């Protein structure tokens, strides 16, 4: 991680990785979407609505993963004073919020025909909604302060305190036996999903993760550039 401490070095590596990442993302999505839409069976109970899952599950787990990443980056900023860690956390937040939103919306669209309702206050749905609020609160802290250093140190605390919610979201389906179905991929006794559906799902996981990495790198680069511009402005104001 210390290799990336120098922003110029980071730009060198990132610029080289960018084209590869974008191509990989595109290919992964084309392949995964083909399998998800045309080369996988409809569920015997859910019918075609099972295909919503190919978007819902990857975006939900990425919403969790991105928050953990944000918290880890915040901890690294706090402990090691890593210069890019705050920027990485800040850049990740809107992406995580978008994945969270996507998971909530696709879940609703699936819930209407399957559960007969757009929304229930079930433990998993509620904790996921709280995760959305945590993302919004974190982004609001960044916007609330004029001084970016102060905003950074306060946003770290918000991210780290909010991480308490992550295990609650993850295990809510096991602790409270309510409407949302329990984990069926990573569980004792192997996945409970048939291979014909599991493989396209895995491909969608790959595609979504690649999409996150690419967009996160772009956002991170923008954030570093914005800081440089700010620093240049302050310098020119000092000179005149």
């Amino acid at each position, binding site marked *: 991680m210390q290799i990336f401490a120098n922003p110029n070095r980071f730009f060198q590596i990132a610029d080289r990785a960018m084209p590869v990442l974008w191509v990989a993302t595109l290919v992964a999505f084309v392949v995964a979407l083909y399998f998800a839409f045309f080369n996988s069976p409809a569920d015997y109970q859910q019918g075609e609505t099972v295909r919503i899952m190919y978007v819902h599950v990857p975006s939900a787990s990425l919403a969790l993963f991105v928050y953990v990443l944000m918290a880890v980056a915040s901890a690294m900023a706090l402990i090691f004073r890593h210069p890019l860690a705050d920027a990485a956390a800040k850049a990740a937040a809107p992406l995580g919020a978008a994945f969270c939103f996507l998971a909530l919306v696709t879940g609703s669209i699936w819930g209407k025909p399957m559960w007969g309702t757009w929304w229930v206050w079930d433990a998993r749905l509620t904790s996921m909604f709280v995760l959305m609020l945590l993302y919004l609160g974190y982004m*609001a*802290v960044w916007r*609330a*302060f004029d001084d970016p250093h*102060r905003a950074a140190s*306060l946003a770290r605390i918000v991210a780290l*305190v909010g991480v*308490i919610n992550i295990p609650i979201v993850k295990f809510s389906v096991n602790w409270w036996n309510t409407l949302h179905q329990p984990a069926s991929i990573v569980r004792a006794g192997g996945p409970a999903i048939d291979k014909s559906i599991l493989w396209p799902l895995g491909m969608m996981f790959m595609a979504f993760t690649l999409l996150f990495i690419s967009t996160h790198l772009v956002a991170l680069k923008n954030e570093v550039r914005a800081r440089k511009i700010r620093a240049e402005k302050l310098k020119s104001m000092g000179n005149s």
Partner: protein
Amino acid sequence: MIAFTAILKRDIILGLRQGGGAGAALAFMLSVLVLIPLALGPDQNLLRRLAPGIMWLALLLAVLLTSERIFQLDYEDGTLDALVGISLPLELVTLAKALAHWLAVGLPLAIIAPLLGILINIDTTALPILMLSMILGSLSLSLLASIGGAITAGLRRGGLLVALLILPLYVPVLVFGVSATSAETGPTGSFSSLLVQVAITMVSLVVQPWASAAALRAYFR
């Protein structure tokens, strides 16, 4: 220890005597109680079913609205500058102030609230449990409010931001506070809910001093 109790005492006195403290919080709670039957209709059975949840919401909002006061006034008049410099660790300073907030605002409200519930036809047999769970819950509400108060200490209009930051953390307190009193769970269910509330309070007791002090340090660098 002397410094700790001194801060505690000072903040309790300020909380009780200053305008907008405990008295205003109680009046706020009362006005919420007036609005609820007007909004939901005066059906006695409906109100009885909803009463514990309504009392919890009123308590939670009253604590939230006073959370800004924990640090903001002291930040503006420079008292916090002095408190950062004393030998007592800043973590304990924030803990003293959070406890003072609980003793001056949260605890009195938690004791009075169940009695006010009579206004909305609360089930009187549930009152002792409700009072117990509110006393426990209000401590964690005050501790969590202090985190939000510390983060927004230097913001002139931090009210909405505090709500956005703290309400997600209030969710578990509210869920288990209400489930302790809901009729469906029965006595064993309410006992386990009370235990979870103790656990939540313990966790917030550990997290609060660290988080509040770290937030305040961001203002004094």
